[in-house]
């Protein structure tokens, strides 16, 4: 269970107050809301990239509210993938495993497993320059999944893709969720994505979160 209680985040003149959210284990949660309502700010706070003013974040039984981003075990896929520009794709995917000092063979095995799942085996030796939007999203997903995070945060992962790629990545997300058994928090403002992917759907209204379906 992921629990966020009475969270308050301030950024310049913008403030999110009293945010409460509970995600059952292994659910695929969708968080919807209009542009500028604070969805990305909330996801960055969950990942440990923004300081919070008040409240708490629990991953399972662990209170991670004051933990640094590198200690949280939360995977993050930003809106436009944000790959490391000077790093080869296979090195990007194993990056989280290298910093965790995992043995080389185990790393290779995990990279191969993810490349197979996400269909990116043919681009592992390439650099990010020249990859298509769909390929970049697959790589970003593999990179965030490599260390088996407790929670995977996806910030509008389909918004910059064309219709056919969107449908491919959408099916892929379903498959990844089923196979990796990870809790997912997916931000979108597209109702179709919410219906297709979400097992539980939340909506941000007036800077509060309400559950709309499950």
């Amino acid at each position, binding site marked *: 269970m992921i629990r966020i209680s009475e969270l308050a985040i301030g950024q310049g003149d913008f403030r999110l107050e009293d945010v409460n959210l509970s995600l059952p284990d292994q659910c695929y949660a969708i968080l919807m809301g209009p542009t500028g309502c604070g969805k990305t700010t909330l996801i960055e706070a969950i990942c*440990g*990239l923004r300081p919070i003013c008040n409240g708490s974040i629990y991953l399972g039984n662990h209170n991670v509210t004051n933990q640094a981003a590198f200690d949280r075990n939360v995977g993050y896929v930003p809106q436009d993938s944000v790959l490391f520009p000077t790093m080869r794709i296979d090195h990007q995917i194993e990056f989280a495993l290298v910093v965790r000092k995992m043995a080389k063979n185990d790393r290779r095995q995990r990279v191969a497993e993810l490349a197979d799942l996400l269909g990116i085996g043919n681009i592992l030796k390439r650099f990010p320059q020249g990859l298509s939007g769909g390929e970049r999203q697959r790589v970003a997903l593999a990179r965030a999944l490599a260390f088996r995070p407790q929670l995977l945060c996806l910030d509008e992962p389909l918004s910059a893709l064309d219709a056919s790629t969107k449908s491919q990545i959408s099916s892929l997300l379903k498959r990844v969720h089923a196979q990796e058994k990870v809790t997912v928090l997916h931000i979108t403002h597209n109702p179709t994505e919410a219906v297709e992917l979400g097992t539980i759907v939340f909506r941000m209204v007036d800077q509060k979160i309400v559950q709309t379906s499950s």
Partner: protein
Amino acid sequence: MSGLGGLYLVLIILLVVVDFQYASWSDIRESLSDERVVFSIYLSLITCSLAAILSIWVAVPTGYVLARLGRDAIQRHLGQKPWLNRLAQFLRHLVDTILDIPIVLPPLVVGISLLVLFQTPVGRSIDHATQSFFSWAGFPGIRGITYEIPAIILAQFTVAAAFAIRTMRNTFEQIDDRPELVALTLGARRFRVFHSVALPQAWPGTVAAFTLAWARSLGEFGPILIFAGTARMKTEVLSTTVYLNFQFGNLRGAVVASLILISVAVVVLVATRLLLLSGQKGGLR
């Protein structure tokens, strides 16, 4: 506008051409066979390289920290505490301004300030420690810093590092910091993020900062004159060779030394440009 730029280009070309016309090839050959000139060329190359390496060593982390402590980052780290935000921003501007001082100071003032610094008790003890170190390292001829070769390197470094820091700060400011934030979520500590994600992207800027520091050190004269002196075959670098020749009425010798200085600078600038181009072709950006 382009006409003014063209006039400036003509001015630079004319400066070099008249120097070449003033001195003949036989003058240059003769100078290059003079052991004093050869010594000053070698000493210039060694001191400039060491000063540039030291400058980069300081400039890369300093430039990174200054670039990443912009208004957004301070807000990101300190959250909603206005007074703390304002204090952090004030301190950042203060440090930034202090680091710019060597750029705006007249070179002679840098030299005099260094000389005075090494007359203080702290400076003297550093001088003694340096002498002991060089004696232990097998260079008993180097007796401390002031009026010795280390003074040349320190004088060059003091000014060159400020330019290198500015270049590195601008380089890191132009690099998107979001990949670094993603790397943090992947479990990387700050140093790992800097080393594995930010630094490889800053490669062209680092080369540019090194070249600038090197070129700046090569042309440095004022602080060296005051702090290291102009002892022939001891602390004489190319810029002081020009000065000494001119001072003793040997204008031809001064022009020849200037031409050597120009040639060395052009070779380094062209080599750096080629290195940057080959890096870009190889996929580095």
